[in-house]
């Protein structure tokens, strides 16, 4: 058994940095859909938050609480961007924040998409609903080095046309040699696009299964079916990455809430490959 450790000091940055809160001011607020808002945040201390696509922060409001929210901004420049869906007490406080409000940020935490593992390969990005939010930084990072990847497809499923996130930006990705295909569950009178399920887009997408990196994010059921479609085509399980979600209180592997059997989603994930996840996703109520 190791001897009692040294007292904490300036040389204990690990513990301190994980629990120390940084304050950020809301500098822009966009209402994306009826219940989803995108906030752009600037650090009060002037230090930009460097992050890897796929990571999250614990985003909070003083006295209300904090929740894990994926980072949705450009990893190579700019402000801290978060897309928040109003589904509970804390997210409501965040989603109703206004420009000039101050929010608390801890992080960034977690394992990201590592889209660079797709260098020299085709990349298929499959997003469902708000699942596009954690994938956006990966696409932006990829676009910054577009020529290092082969064919790139973004398959995006949303509930209705007006529920799509970042619609004009996503449309512009087509100009960057990205095959963007959108589909909705329910159309609208003006919608001339596809109506159907995002999984059905997978067999139609242009990629070589043996030479592909697939990044998938959305409701867990949707991710399972998309994964099946990818596996059916021959994409190896360790080249399919999912962003998992579980209850989180600390974001740093200490509170125990986010465990998926032996994995801590906040530390070992949230991005995890299907080869690791396969036995775990099969167990109900794990």
């Amino acid at each position, binding site marked *: *058994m*190791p*001897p*009692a*450790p*040294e*007292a*904490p000091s300036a040389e*204990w940055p*690990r*513990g*301190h940095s*994980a*629990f*120390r*809160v*940084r*304050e950020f001011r809301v500098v822009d607020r966009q209402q994306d859909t009826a219940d989803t808002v995108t906030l752009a945040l600037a650090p*009060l*201390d002037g230090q930009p938050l460097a992050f890897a696509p796929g990571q999250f922060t614990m985003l*909070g409001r*003083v*006295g*209300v*609480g*904090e929740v894990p929210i994926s980072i949705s901004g450009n990893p190579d420049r700019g402000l801290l961007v978060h897309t928040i*869906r109003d*589904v*509970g007490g804390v*997210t409501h406080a965040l989603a109703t924040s206004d420009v000039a409000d*101050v929010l608390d940020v801890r992080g960034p935490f977690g394992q990201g998409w590592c889209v660079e593992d797709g260098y020299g390969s085709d990349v298929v990005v499959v997003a469902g609903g708000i699942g596009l939010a954690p994938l956006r930084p990966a696409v932006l990072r990829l676009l910054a080095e577009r020529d290092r990847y082969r064919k790139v497809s973004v398959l995006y499923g949303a509930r209705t046309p007006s529920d799509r996130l970042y619609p004009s930006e996503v449309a512009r990705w087509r100009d960057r040699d990205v095959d963007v295909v959108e589909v909705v569950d329910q159309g609208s009178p003006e919608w001339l696009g596809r109506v159907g399920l995002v999984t059905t887009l997978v067999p139609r997408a242009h990629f070589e299964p043996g030479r592909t990196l697939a990044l998938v994010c959305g409701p867990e059921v949707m991710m399972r079916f998309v994964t099946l479609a990818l596996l059916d085509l021959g994409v190896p399980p360790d080249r399919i990455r999912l962003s998992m*979600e*579980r*209850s989180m*209180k*600390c974001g*740093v*592997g*200490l*509170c*125990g*809430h986010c*465990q998926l*059997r*032996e994995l*801590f989603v906040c*530390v070992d994930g949230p991005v995890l490959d299907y080869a690791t996840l396969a036995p775990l996703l099969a*167990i*109900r*109520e*794990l």
Partner: protein
Amino acid sequence: MASHAMAVLDVDGLQALLDLLRADGWTVLGPTILDGVVTHGEITSVDDFPRGVGDEQDAGHYRLRERDDDAFFGYAVGPQSWKAELFPAHELLARREPDASGVPPRLAPEARAVALFGVRSCDLHAIAIHDHVLLSRSHADVHYGARRAETLTVAVSCSDPGGTCFCASTGTGPSPTDGFDLSLTELLDDNGHRFVVRSGGPRGDHLLDRLPALPVDLDDLTADAAVTERAVSVMGRQLDLDGLRDLLYDNSDHPQWDDVATRCLSCTNCTLVCPTCFCTSVEDTADLVDGSTERWRVWDSCFTSEFSAMHGGSVRTSTRSRYRQWATHKLASWIDQFGTSGCVGCGRCITWCPAAIDLTAEVAAIRATPAAGPIDQSDPAEA
């Protein structure tokens, strides 16, 4: 085994040790009786110890009894582990004054210098496990670290394991092997009421140097070994660790989980008394009068229905899934996460379960019929 100084202390010497620790600035916490149980309280005199007291422990059963001798440490562990001191149920993490925008909240690790007296081997291993889980991974819990850094440990070798103890099978006792400053084995025989004291390091040596210690002789060593040998032979329970991780991973659908779920009340007692459980939650409170806010770390339990709650509901809604989570984590996933089992064989979860559920029996039931055969699929209406 630590190869530092060894000596013998008599009862007066034990008091001298307490006095020395206090003179050195340590608050001494040790076993004492409160509300009908042996718990941890402040110790100033040997009279504070449960002298002449023993215990009876079984599933859902705990009673103190009168011994026919004067032993200070003649009982097994009580409901309280050292977790309550090093990793308290409520810990202030940070406090922010009103209108303090731009000023980071004050982190509040505060610790008093505490000598943990009478620490059993199981609890020593539990502390080592917490050291690993809370301090040596990608992020550390500074508050635990601050308390832990101000800790001195005097261990005691168990002479009277309880009916629910199984440290012998988990390899975590009954005799402390390292991780202590001093370790005592209590002896009561024709050679007198005395304690064989081993030092675990320089701090222990320094204490022994300043105590009225007597030399150790062969009789003392023989008696010491006999205490441990006897303790091993009277262990109340046993747990077969062989292949346990794979056994539990492979049996996530075993009918035993359904069976235990009919008895388990999800009362969270087991997680409260377990010395290695570490799950917590974070609570933010706001003072409506002065506008200050505080962030607290509080104990949580995987047995609560909200533990796995996300927007829209919980992942583990059934008691079945929550008992399975706790047992599988403690005995299997822990090994993948932290390199050791999470169970130290202290038996508290068995003793303090109001439904008398015995973890060792549940595991044995799964082991007896692994990957159980198909459930009877005939239609009861057609029987």
